[in-house]
């Protein structure tokens, strides 16, 4: 009895599917929850706008009670701030000329982190560099911390400080499935169809041969209005010229690739759709006619899931299309938000570096702790046993100072 795993099954084994896939409602609810918890907490360390400072030991008076609850960022603002820094990651990754998978992974790490943490607790300015560095490690780029720190003129320890927090917030799942390779796959197939060498699986009911597919492709109307592709059939060339068809595919690919780079990363599509749906959405946005044709070679008209697939892809396309570069926060707005954030952020997480060091010093290794205590106890036991034979009885137990 053989178990056949289809491509869909393979996707279902990934942690992205298992842990990081949501409905729009549950995603919103989660963010809501995180935000609410942060606000609750903020109320504790902030004043209520009338001077009372709640519980404050006032050691560093300037961060306590300066802000008010009203100063706290709204959920909307938080989201936009995170988005702003996601964009920042993109820029930085491009600066390092790292491959696109590092970029995508880093942005996803940031988004995932802020699903369960609020910017009030961890302002993104302090975490985005670490997210990018972490992504570089998991995606196989080998740049040392010192090199990285130097290139972006930041203190290495500052970069490293939230690493542990981030990986914890990621639930220790580090793989991010991405649509880029899939898009390349689509391009490869389209190119073969353009050259007359297309092939469809046996059980597919589109049942077309290579030549037929090529003809179909040639007969496609031009790029629809509203689509982003800039391709236009060159005048005078034969419609069925393979090079023309290939060209169309390449142009569509280029546009889609751009779409995957910016809007895809900056919106929530990774949480709501699977990578093939994402790139199909992008392809739809680029050249809907071509994408529709390509999809039709995969799913026959009678296929049961066809409707759902089309609808899903459509939804994704809309989401991608709705995004515009103007949506990204401007520098001024960011500065303004961050000033407010500075006043109302959680003070306990202000000094992550110091906290980490304290943790390592004070907490110590659990196992080591046990060993130390155990050893001491054992010595005490032995000592008391020896002294038990002593004429004057065992010595009085010393008060052990627990670490």
């Amino acid at each position, binding site marked *: 009895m053989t178990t*056949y795993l289809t491509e869909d099954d393979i996707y279902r084994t990934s942690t992205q599917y298992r842990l990081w896939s949501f409905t729009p409602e549950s995603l919103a609810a*989660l963010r809501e929850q995180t935000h609410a918890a942060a606000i609750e907490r903020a109320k504790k360390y902030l004043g209520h706008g009338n001077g009372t400072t709640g519980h404050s030991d006032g050691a560093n008076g300037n961060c306590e009670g300066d802000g008010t609850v009203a100063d706290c960022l709204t959920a909307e603002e938080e989201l936009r701030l995170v988005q702003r820094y996601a964009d920042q990651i993109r820029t930085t990754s491009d600066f390092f000329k790292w491959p696109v998978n590092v970029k995508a992974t880093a942005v996803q790490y940031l988004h995932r982190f802020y699903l369960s943490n609020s910017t009030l607790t961890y302002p993104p300015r302090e975490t985005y560099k670490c997210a990018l560095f972490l992504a570089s490690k998991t995606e196989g780029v080998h740049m040392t911390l010192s090199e990285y720190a130097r290139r972006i003129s930041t203190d290495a320890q500052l970069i490293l400080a939230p690493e542990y927090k981030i990986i914890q917030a990621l639930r220790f799942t580090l793989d991010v499935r991405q649509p880029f390779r899939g898009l390349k*796959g689509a391009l490869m197939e389209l190119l073969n169809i353009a050259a007359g060498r297309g092939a469809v699986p046996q059980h597919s009911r589109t049942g077309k041969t290579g030549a037929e597919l090529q003809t179909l492709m040639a007969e496609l109307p031009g790029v629809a209005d509203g689509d982003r592709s800039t391709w236009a059939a060159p005048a005078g060339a034969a419609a069925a010229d393979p090079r023309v068809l290939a060209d169309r595919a390449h142009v569509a690919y280029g546009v889609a690739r751009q779409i995957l780079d910016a809007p895809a990363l900056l919106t929530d599509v990774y949480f709501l759709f*699977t990578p093939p749906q994402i790139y199909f959405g992008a392809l739809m946005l680029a050249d809907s006619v071509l994408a529709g044709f390509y999809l039709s070679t995969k799913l026959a008209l009678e296929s049961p899931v066809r409707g759902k697939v089309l609808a899903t892809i459509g939804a994704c396309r809309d989401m991608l299309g709705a995004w515009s570069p103007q949506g990204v926060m401007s520098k001024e707005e960011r500065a303004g938000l961050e000033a407010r954030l500075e006043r109302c952020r959680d003070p306990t997480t202000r000094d992550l570096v110091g906290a980490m060091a304290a943790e390592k010093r004070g907490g110590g290794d659990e196992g080591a702790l046990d060993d130390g205590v155990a050893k001491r106890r054992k010595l005490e036991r032995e000592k008391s046993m020896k002294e038990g034979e002593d004429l004057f009885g065992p010595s009085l137990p010393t008060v052990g100072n627990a670490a």
Partner: protein
Amino acid sequence: MTVSLEAHGKLPIFEAILAADLPAHEPHPPRSPIHVSHLVLDVRLPTFVSQLTISPPTMSRLAQSRAAPAAARPGDQDGELLQHSLSQLRFTDAQPEPDICPVCKSSRYLNKSMQFLVNPECYHKMCESCVDRIFSHGPNKCPIAGCNRTLRKHRFRKQTFEDIAVEREVDIRKRVAAIFNRREDEFEDLMDYNNYLNDVEDITFNLVNRIDVEENEKKLAAYAEQNSKSISANASLASQETQDYSALQAAEREQARLRRDTARREEEEERRARAEGRQDIINRLASGTASAEQIAQESRVTLKKRMDKKAAAERQRQLHAAAAAKDATNGSSGFLIKGLKTKKEVGPEKPFDAFGGLSFAKHDYCVLQDHYEWDWLNEVRGDVQIVAGGYDVQEFHQRALCDAFAGLGVFVGEEAAARDEAAMGPGAVKAAATAGAAGACTGAKDIKMEDPF
């Protein structure tokens, strides 16, 4: 009259009495011994009684009616009676062959080679000549007074045990075991097997001690009828096993012998070769065709070669021996199990599937081709540095196409919703995971204890 030794807490006196008078019939206790029984059965030898696992037999049903008032009686009476009953037992050693045949009264003195035979019908003993005389012409009645059983000549055999009761018991056990011959591995649980053995032992006990003989014989017959197939199968298995065992022993002896022979032969060879070599060297030195150094060199080389060959041969032999031993014993823990395990196979054994029952072959959406009209991709093939290292563009094709469709049919919205509904908090994590995996086969996957937020 032989006295049967106590068996399973049965009070010997009563048994002996009944055995003497009514050897084979259902012991309906006659009126007179009731009194005796009443007294005797009062003696509840506590240790034996506590080990009784079976329901009390018919005779002590009688005792039971008396037991209640009787139990009230104090213990000193028990002690006396116990002494009494024990003294009745003759814990003597096995009796030597009696010298006088009970039928013809001839003594061993007169006939040195007198043999006694018994018949399993009634276990009465008589000398060979009597058997010949009385039963050669056909079945006849047992000559012992009071025994009315019809006996046949061919059923007479030599008594194996000195105590006739043991002989009888063994015969009964043989008979029962021939019918109730289920094996341990036919039972799911050790407890079940032990229960089965217990039931069988109950029947045997009843038969041996002549309790409900008819009923038990009926049970035997019924079981034999119903399970005739399995009985014969098990019987053949048992005989097969004993055969295999002796075959295996013979094989081992053979092996040992062969090994000895080969070792001897090799020694011979080596001795001869060495002697020859030495002779050869002497000849060569004498005739002056080779110098001393050359000879020394050669001998070193041949010696090394021989050592290597021996080492290699030794290793191979070890591997072979291990393999042979493994195959002979089926790699299992013991030789006796050989036949049994294969019986459990359902139909013919399936051919070995190297892939372990997993396949990625089902492609819903695409057909993997080995060439795509994309220059960027194809240039890889031309780059020697890349391809000489073994980089395979085809692997990339496969991956790109797999990525292109892995999850196209997965509707995150629906499945996540189903998961969220099922997951009411972190408790129902398993349900969440399985809901998410609905429709997917779980061959390689093992959804674990993680839950979405």
